[in-house]
């Protein structure tokens, strides 16, 4: 199988898993879900890391640096803010 085909398989299956899990999430948690999912979409960081492997001032590297920057804001900000919200949900017990 070509990598593209495997990728499509993985994609389709992951979408199903996502649907299965997320339909069960209560409305109370929709906002944390969203910001959490947002943080997860920062997984692009993995791709971004590959894009800035050398210290040369090439366009590719600068774009890669910016990609890391953006993805990292997404990841750190997303997870922290989600945690802040969930702390409030849990805090009153």
């Amino acid at each position, binding site marked *: 199988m070509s990598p593209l085909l495997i990728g499509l398989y993985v994609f389709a299956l992951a*979408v199903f898993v996502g649907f299965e899990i997320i339909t069960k999430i209560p409305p109370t948690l929709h906002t944390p879900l969203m910001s959490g999912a947002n943080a997860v979409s*920062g997984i692009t960081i993995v791709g971004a890391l590959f894009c800035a492997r*050398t210290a040369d001032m090439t366009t590719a*590297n600068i774009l890669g640096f910016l990609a890391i920057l953006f993805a990292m804001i997404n990841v750190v*900000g997303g997870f922290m803010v989600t945690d802040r919200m969930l702390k409030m949900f849990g805090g009153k017990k």
Partner: protein
Amino acid sequence: MYLVASILFILGLKMLTRVKTARNGNRLSSTAMLLAVVATLLDMGQVDYTFIIAGIVLGSAIGAIMALKVEMTSMPEMVAMFNGFGGGASLLVAGSFLFENVFAGNLAFGGILPMDTTITLFISVLIGSVTLTGSLIAFGKLNGKISGQPILFPGNNILNLLLVVGILGSVVFVVGFNEDPNIAFTVSMTVIGLSCVLGVLLVTPIGGADMPVVISLLNSYSGLAASATGFVLGNNMLIICGALVGASGLILTQIMCKAMNRSLANVLFGGFGQADSGGGGGKNDDAYHSVKSCGPEEAAMIFESARDVIIVPGYGLAVAQAQHATKELADLLIKNGANVRYAIHPVAGRMPGHMNVLLAESNVPHEQLFDLDQINDDFQNADIALILGANDVVNPAATKDPDSPIHGMPVLKVWDSKTVFVVKRSLSPGFAAIPNDLFNYDNNMMLFGDAKKILTQLVHELKEMVD
């Protein structure tokens, strides 16, 4: 290791389905992210870390500051912003990939990259750009920098269509027929430019009331953008994570659309509010003929004898930062022997679940929060329905007036309760820009003013009576 990270992501998401485990779920996801980053760094071997470390440190710092400083009321803006960053990151990765593998060698696409990589690359560029610019517009609309009114010009949808055709055409041309590196460069940049314009034009016609839908949708896009990047790099973990986020955003979008009784297509292309303004918005002046209002003292007396109170919070509560005052009032009522519940409409606030977060911030136990379906039949037994800065979600026109633009939208039947109090600054219409007949009802009382102020006065009056 990527496999482990992927599994952890899925488990983390699963734990988000319950309030109790949600926090640990989030931690699990962040651990997975760390694992993924470490694994990637190891995998890359010995490289120069200058840009990598600079990017990670700077990005983390900015992200952390934003996360710690943001007010819970402006959470929607924050999420919109982060969506944009996610999309932007995907676009940048694709861009970097282009420069490194194609333009640096001064080459055209044919021959260097396999066809499927090139195509997924452009999909990544397209989705990334649309997410980036679309999110920025959404952000602007949410914090008021751009008008919340739908901006729709004639031919907007046709222009969007032309843009899509233009983008697809460019891609097909550059992939299939072009051998000249200069043209390849120009066309690629054009694709990015057109995609960015498309992102803007897709969001500008959407009104403020529909923002929950747009944010959810952009959330989904940002996931799909990550997935597309995964295809480009042949990295399954990226594909999985992107798909999870894509699915989650899509489900939320669906829920939001259902809560407003509109199809997704209608939200995206409708220019809601503007098209309907002739139907109702214009008659604003004579729409209110028998509105009754009262002061906090009068209201406090009714509250004092109430046994069953349902509070309906809306975005106005968030704007007035009145969630703590609300909780204070609720506590007082409970102490006075009343049963207090909150009715949360799915689109209350500016994003899915926004009200729940705000109320959680002021320590309202989530057992007191009820969904539309759970509580709607209880209004007939309630002594008081207290509406705080909500409007369209309690508009009786949705069930009673077949000509109303919001007809059929599920609303809270607050008018069934004995007395309705509406705390509102004025009679101005909500986002749907239509008058609310509820304000004319016999059992409705208006409490005009800032929600926080009114509630504080109410608490004060009530305290004096109870003691």
